[in-house]
């Protein structure tokens, strides 16, 4: 199926889930959403697809919607809540990946051997990609929290705060991810292409992310 259609489908699913979880489960819902998106990102980013002749890692949609969720939390609870969030996602991300990776090291049984061997192949060379995702997420979330809150204090407008933080933070995040994940593996030109397409997708998704921030503004904690 066309990759663009599937990306749009993924985006719609993410935005609906995010808004629904915040509406019904408040902060616990958003925390859960962010953590699950990061687990999915570390798995999905192992696969690459071609989008308009550019290679791009999957998992970009759940990764960017994490920033939308983070902005909803800042909008409601201020920047201090992000420190707790970053600590929580660091610990849960390391623990969940450690378990998934350790299971890959275990000998598969003869039952459903084909699937078990395929599971092992997915995670066998996943460490570098996981590290790239982990560092990019933590660094960008921290910077995003500071920038978004600063913009919110200067001019209390959701669109402006989200627009400028998206433009700056995703530029840095795309560069960081591209460098950590692909330096010494791909040619510099290929890395630049990956960074460019990643930034473009991030900008579009990040701006669409303004909608759930507006919708959740009316929800009281």
């Amino acid at each position: 199926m066309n990759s663009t259609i599937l990306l749009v489908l993924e985006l719609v699913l993410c935005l609906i889930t995010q808004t629904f979880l915040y509406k019904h489960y408040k902060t616990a819902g958003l925390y859960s959403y962010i953590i699950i998106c990061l687990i999915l990102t570390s798995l999905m980013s192992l696969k690459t697809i071609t989008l308009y002749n550019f290679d791009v890692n999957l998992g970009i949609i759940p990764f960017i919607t994490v920033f939308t969720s983070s902005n909803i939390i800042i909008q409601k609870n201020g920047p201090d809540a992000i420190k707790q969030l970053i600590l929580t996602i660091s610990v849960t991300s390391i623990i969940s990946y450690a378990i998934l990776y350790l299971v890959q090291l275990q000998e598969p049984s003869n039952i459903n051997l084909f699937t078990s061997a395929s599971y092992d192949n997915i995670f066998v060379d996943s460490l570098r990609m996981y590290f790239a995702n982990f560092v990019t997420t933590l660094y960008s979330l921290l910077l995003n929290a500071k920038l978004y809150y600063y913009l919110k204090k200067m001019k209390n407008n959701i669109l402006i705060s989200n627009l400028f933080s998206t433009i700056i933070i995703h530029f840095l995040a795309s560069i960081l991810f591209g460098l950590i994940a692909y330096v010494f593996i791909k040619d510099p030109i290929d890395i630049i292409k990956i960074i460019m397409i990643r930034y473009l997708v991030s900008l579009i998704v990040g701006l669409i992310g303004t909608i759930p921030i507006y919708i959740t503004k009316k929800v009281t904690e």
Partner: protein
Amino acid sequence: MNIIIYLGILIISIFSIQLAKKYLGKLGLTITFIVMSTVSFLLAFKYITLSTININSNSITYVTMFTTLYMLLESTNKKEVKEIINLNFIINIFTAMMLYIMTYYTQSLTDTISINMKNVFSSNYQILIVYPLTTLLSNYLLIRVHEKIKKLYDNHFITTVTTYLLIGIIEGIIYTLLVYNQILNTKTIILVILSTYMVRLILTVIYSLFLTLLSKKKVKS
């Protein structure tokens, strides 16, 4: 080697419960419950050999999920625990949909992981449907059975182990029959159900001893 890794995962899981409870209280237990459920979901695709028996690789994380649920039942009311179970169900459905969509993307020329992802998530689509449903069912059953047994014997160890004795076999039979009915023969299905049930029961006993020690400390709310 498998047993050493298995023990490693057990230690990580026990450590994560204690960490979550100590620093985040109820929110921490909720997050641990959801993370362990999602990790169990991803691990459900692999079977491993432990000594001579074949078991599902998610046994530890699945029992960890039940343990956090017992702890939530001890520290909060039934209505809140039911809300957490519903949240977990929505997250599981979201994960299943994301994983299924992922397999439909056409991979790039350099991608080598995609075929393995298709073998794991697309060929075993039954797990994507059955796991969220059986988890929801077993969690609701757990609340009911736990409540009834607790009225008879107000002892952590007896309550948790007896609850698992009943829930574990029901969940095991429903899950394995629905997923592997067309794939494995009857003898293998029975062996898988019994071996997974037995290992999870041993893990429940270990966790229950640990839970009895932990329950002396009050959960932060």
